[in-house]
């Protein structure tokens, strides 16, 4: 089981570990800075952190084990004057980095490869541990990409990147709002794979439109990668055929609205969620913070509460802030109100690590 985690927050990157007394915060990197995503690459041992400095833009830092250094962040190419760039609402879409929203490693057979998802919708690849980055033009130049629009943020973006463990050239992306996109040739060609999803925020005749779905987060089961789960803006969806089709999971109490989802690495029927009431009321129902867990592929759910506050909790868990380790027994989540909880028994019991951190954006076991 993992004994460390990295927690990206609005005011720094917190290093958390388990000792004889339980889990506790050790130290913090980039104290005071807005850390949006972090990554530990198990192939190289390198760590990465993306910072959004607001006024001064988005930066990328790397630690090879001897301290953090700023490295070149992915950058959009110069936009030709004759190229029209719009989002799905017809608004001008800038060719400039707004946010690094996803950072993942390539497969074990391609050391040095990193994938980076961004707002306003570009996917970048590095083949040299982040020294240089290239925009994936087939996806950026895909005409349907201009149907994407922002979800929660002003502009669209790629927040989920799943590299298939069986074949590193098969990659699935979650896009808000743009559906799920898949390549089977390492990014040369892409197809939208969101059939079966439902977008209540569109007019009735457009609600099954795949290119404007809002999958809040996409995860795959490590040992059965054709089994995928999505926490969507309008509910929970799963695919049993490698994203060819999606089916909605219904009758989830207290709610099927949320952002994060975690799937057990070896049991594709087992998944966890942290629900809010609904899209326009993003707080736990009745002030009771709960985790929901299915063990039967969404037919039924346990409502897990042990160790979680059941009065006056207004924690919201963002899409990258619910994590599971490789054993499948440990999960952790952080909230917008600065709490972190961890479980070592698949959610039956939770331990509070802190309730006073800055807003938490992302949690990873390392």
């Amino acid at each position, binding site marked *: 089981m993992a004994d460390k985690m990295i927690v990206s927050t609005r005011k720094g990157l917190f290093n958390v570990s388990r000792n004889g007394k339980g889990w506790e915060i050790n130290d913090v990197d980039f104290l005071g800075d807005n850390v949006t995503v972090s990554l530990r690459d198990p192939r190289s041992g390198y760590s990465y952190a993306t910072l959004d*400095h*607001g*006024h*001064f*833009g988005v*930066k990328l830092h790397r630690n090879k084990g001897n301290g953090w250094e*700023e490295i070149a*962040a992915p*950058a*959009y*190419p*110069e*936009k030709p004057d004759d190229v029209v760039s719009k989002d799905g609402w017809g608004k001008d879409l*800038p*060719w*400039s*980095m707004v946010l690094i929203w996803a950072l993942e490693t390539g497969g074990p057979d391609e050391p040095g490869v990193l994938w980076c998802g961004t707002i306003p919708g570009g996917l970048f690849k590095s083949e040299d541990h982040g020294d240089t980055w290239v925009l994936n033009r087939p996806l950026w130049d895909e005409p349907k990409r201009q149907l994407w629009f922002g979800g929660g943020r002003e502009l669209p973006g790629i927040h989920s990147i799943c590299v298939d463990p069986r074949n590193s050239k098969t990659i699935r992306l979650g896009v808000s709002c743009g559906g799920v996109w898949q390549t089977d040739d390492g990014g040369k060609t892409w197809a939208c794979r969101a059939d079966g999803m439902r977008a209540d925020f569109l007019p009735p005749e457009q609600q099954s439109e795949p290119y404007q779905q809002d999958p809040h987060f996409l995860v795959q089961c490590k040992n059965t990668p054709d089994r995928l789960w999505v926490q969507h803006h309008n509910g929970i969806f799963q695919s049993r055929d490698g994203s060819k089709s999606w089916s909605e999971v219904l009758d989830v109490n207290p709610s099927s609205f949320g952002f994060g989802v975690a799937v057990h690495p070896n049991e594709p029927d087992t998944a966890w969620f942290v629900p809010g009431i609904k899209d326009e009321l993003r707080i736990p129902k009745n002030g009771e913070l709960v985790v929901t867990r299915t063990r039967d592929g969404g037919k039924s759910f346990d409502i897990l509460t042990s160790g979680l506050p059941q009065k006056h909790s207004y924690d919201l868990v963002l899409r990258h802030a619910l994590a599971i380790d490789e054993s499948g027994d440990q999960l952790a989540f952080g909230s917008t109100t600065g709490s972190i909880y961890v479980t070592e028994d698949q959610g039956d019991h939770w331990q509070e690590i802190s309730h006073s951190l800055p807003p938490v954006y992302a949690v990873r076991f390392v």
Partner: protein
Amino acid sequence: MAKVTFTANLMRHVDCPSVDAPGVTVREVLAAVFAENPRLKSYVVDEQFALRRHMGIIVDGDIVLDRRRLSDAVESNSEVFVLQALSGG
């Protein structure tokens, strides 16, 4: 040569003392500065060399209006201040 001064808050992230730089537009002056200090560039302008959304530039007391092309004129003895626009928080 224009004198270019950067907000002190930038010093926390990248070394950027005041410098003298040639050019007859804001873009030319900044390009000259970035040629000597490449890492500073992405902190001030975006990939299209447009001024970052929450930054501002003042030349001899006048706010730079052409934020996209930075075509505002600079004199040889101008003072150029690169500042945070408080709109960004």
